[in-house]
């Protein structure tokens, strides 16, 4: 059965797969994780805020995002963003939003929901005496968060945040519904063009597997190091 396979197609398409596909995937993963962390932290602060209304809004947002399939959000968002943009700017026709921008916004919003739960757990893991000591020194709420609570919460939660980022790395392949050439999309394009489905999908699986495994291993080592420092 393997006699008909032509693995040379992989070699021939390597530059396209990695320079175009993988760089897109990594960029989308990195920017989404960063944006998700920033907005996730804000949502976590809203949820823990003493203003009940803010907490309710943030809670609703998180529940909403977590109860929708990611593919559906990507899909809907791609078709909705131009109209939302039109409505916001008052333009006469739907504004043009590139597939990359649209998918980036989607992933940031989606990941923010997950990162916010992680950061919330991280903030709650800090003993109440820490912000009390910060207040007693005259630091404001914002300063106490910025210099005392969030750095510790972030450090405690770093392994979990990175693990979630590995999941995100795999999830970015879902942008195939928008026909964007991310790594999987690029592999898929070559596969269809050359009729080499088995080879290309095997190779794509192997690449995702190796990168995710290496990253998980790195996270475990990091976790061990953090555990010692504490």
């Amino acid at each position, binding site marked *: 059965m393997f006699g008909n396979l032509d693995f040379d197609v992989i070699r021939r398409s390597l530059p396209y797969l990695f320079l175009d596909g993988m760089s897109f995937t990594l960029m989308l993963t990195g920017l989404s994780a960063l944006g998700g962390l920033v907005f996730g932290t804000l949502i976590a602060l809203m949820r823990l805020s003493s203003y009940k209304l803010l907490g309710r809004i943030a809670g609703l947002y998180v529940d909403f995002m977590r109860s929708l399939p990611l593919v559906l959000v990507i899909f809907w968002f791609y078709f909705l963003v131009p109209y939302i943009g039109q409505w916001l700017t008052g333009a006469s026709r739907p504004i043009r939003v590139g597939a990359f921008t649209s998918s980036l916004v989607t992933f940031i919003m989606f990941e923010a929901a997950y990162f916010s739960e992680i950061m919330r757990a991280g903030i709650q893991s800090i003993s109440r005496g820490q912000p009390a000591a910060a207040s*007693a020194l005259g630091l404001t709420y914002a300063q106490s968060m910025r210099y005392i609570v969030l750095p510790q919460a972030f*450090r405690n939660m770093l392994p979990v945040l990175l693990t979630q980022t590995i999941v995100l790395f795999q999830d970015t392949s879902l942008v195939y519904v928008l026909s964007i050439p991310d790594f999987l999309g690029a592999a898929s394009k070559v596969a269809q063009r050359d009729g080499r489905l088995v080879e290309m999908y095997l190779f794509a699986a192997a690449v995702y597997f190796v990168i995710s495994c290496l990253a998980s291993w790195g996270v475990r080592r990091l976790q061990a190091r953090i555990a010692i420092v*504490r």
Partner: protein
Amino acid sequence: MIEISHVNKWYGPSFQVLKDCTTSVAKGEVVVVCGPSGSGKSTLIKCVNALEPFQEGQIILDGVKVNDPKTDLPKLRARVGMVFQHFELFPHLRIIENLCLAQEKVLGRSHDEAVAKGDKLLERVGLKAHANKYPAELSGGQQQRVAIARALAMDPIAMLFDEPTSALDPEMISEVLDVMVDLAHEGMTMMVVTHEMGFASKVAHRVIFMDKGEIVEDAQKTDFFGSPRSERAQKFLSKILSH
């Protein structure tokens, strides 16, 4: 310096932790607050710098009403040092950074100025060699001395101590008390929640005894140790002094 008048505080609708507490601490005075656990003494001292809110009464700190919604609390708290039972050093910052953070962010001192002040205070509590370590590398007694130095770095007008030796191993208690005795002798205004009656009899001017949220006894040191007027204070003293 600290005027506490008719303070009432409830947790929830029915549980009253502070009942009509009235007392004061004059400038340069050392006041020890003692009493059985759950008597509200820690809660009372935390009300002084508004770490705990209270529902009725008022506290005036150096002429500023603590429970006035218009009061700039961070600014007020920066002027009063506080030392906690569990030290509460910032574990992700080095010792010297623990001392510098609030000096720079709250008082606006330059980094060099803050480090110089921090070094001086670390030397004073005998820990200059540990400036670049992290809190977890120090013993409990050393951490508490750092916490005192951190509070002093803000040039406070008064110091609040909330059971500063309760979480320490016995052999470390004296090194912390020594620092506190020195402070008292220098004329620092101090309000100290503690069970260390030796410290109280050595440096306190007044002793306040609390039980069940009430100030039962508020007396000069000699009166308090000589002949406490209330039965509850007598019982308490006999329990902790008998060993």
